[in-house]
């Protein structure tokens, strides 16, 4: 499989490439957040974006579904370019789930209501069908007994699991995670990572911005290291964590106390 792909001409959109970033640049005034990023995400792949804070990994993730507009460059989803007009990206967003650092559950809806919202509003599902789907997803993230809880009455880890279920309710082809465990108490990080791990095992395509190196090491198929708005290194997790090729990667990993 990899061999056939390698023979295809450079730059063409490969059949199993779901997301392709081409020379993505983003500037906020003087500050260069992304300085020309090229990256491909293949179907079923788990790609972890790591690197110091402010290195551009979250910005790239937010460019993926058009929450952030690029200064220049292109993002292709399933061969379709994202529009510069964020309003035109609704169809693409429906096919990509997103999980936020601060959960962003809707506080005026119960756990079940949060999950039902997308299918009912966007897909036009009946309340009954949306409920069935939401209940199944709550069971999947192990929170069936919290269906009628409001977010304020859930722990951080539980909120994030509901947020994952909410994104899954749209039956997305890709899941984007923006530092999903950074706002969590240490004791609840594990439950969220477990849900993510199971999702990966089910074959979900995932792009994960994370500081959880153990997760990246164990779950990722591909690890991408960012620094100063650029990719400084990418490859299999073993390669990145055990035999980093660049000083930037080594510096970053040693900062985290990672000793391979």
């Amino acid at each position: 499989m990899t061999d056939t792909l390698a023979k295809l001409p450079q730059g063409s959109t490969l059949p199993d490439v779901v997301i392709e970033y081409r020379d993505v640049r983003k500037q906020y005034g003087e500050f260069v957040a992304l300085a020309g990023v090229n990256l491909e995400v293949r179907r079923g792949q788990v790609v972890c974006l790591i690197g110091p804070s402010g290195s551009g990994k979250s910005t790239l993730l937010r460019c993926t579904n058009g929450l952030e507009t690029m200064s220049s460059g292109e993002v292709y989803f399933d061969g379709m370019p994202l529009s510069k007009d964020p309003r035109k990206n609704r169809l693409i967003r429906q096919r990509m789930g997103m999980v936020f650092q601060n959960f962003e559950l809707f506080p005026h809806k119960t756990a079940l209501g949060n999950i039902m919202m997308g299918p009912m509003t966007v897909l036009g599902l009946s309340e009954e069908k949306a409920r069935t789907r939401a209940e199944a997803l709550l069971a999947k993230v192990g929170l069936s007994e919290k269906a009628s809880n409001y977010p304020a009455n859930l722990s951080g880890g539980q909120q994030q699991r509901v947020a994952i279920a909410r994104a899954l309710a749209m039956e997305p082809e890709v899941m984007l995670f923006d530092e999903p465990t950074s706002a969590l108490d240490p004791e609840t990080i594990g439950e969220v990572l477990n849900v993510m791990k199971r999702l990966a095992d089910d074959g979900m395509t995932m792009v994960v911005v994370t500081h959880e190196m153990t997760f990246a090491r164990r779950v990722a198929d591909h690890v991408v290291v960012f620094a100063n708005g650029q990719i400084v290194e990418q490859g299999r997790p073993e390669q990145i964590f055990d035999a980093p090729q660049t000083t930037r990667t080594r510096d970053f990993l040693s900062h985290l106390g990672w000793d391979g």
Partner: protein
Amino acid sequence: MTFDWSIIWQSMGALWQGALVTIALTVLTMVLAVPLGIVVALLRESRLKPVSALATAYVELMRNVPIILVVYWAFYVLPILTGVGFSPFLTGLVALVLNNTAYNSETFRSGIRSIRKGQTEAGLALGMSEGEAFRKIVLPQAWRRVLPILATTWVTLFKDTSLVSVIAVGDLAHTALQIRSQSFRVIEMLTAMAAIYWLLGYPQAKIVDWIHRKYGVTE
């Protein structure tokens, strides 16, 4: 000086009618000025500069001009502008709605702005349009936050409706003041007027207090 309180009992029917007009004015003003306030708040946030500038100008004008002036303005200018003669009630209603819409728009604007951008983004990420995200996510949350302020506005409005008495709307103030000048029972009528406003206003104020307690601080 002698008092003749019987004038109050004799006028009870008229005063009751006046009170009904006052209540009707308050309710109708709020029913119109709440949705219009949301519209003006959205216009102020519009990406189109002329639209937001116009909405801002309207709000700043209404917030910094006495209501009584707006009432007179509506009385004299509205017929010229429209070529139609408005009843005093309708004229008063227009003036109060103009004024209250401006205040409510500010209330809603602060409420809408208090909702984190991430909430809208969560909706957009699900594939909602900006309008859907606003209606389903932002507005219901903003609504809860501004309810205590709207309730306070309501009580203020209830008293401010008395200003339309200057254009002979048959509200409580106008009715009471009319009876006063016909009967010369000044103290009696002013006392009765105060008592009725208080009797009607106090429960409303208590409800407002309750709303503040229930919805004031959430999250």
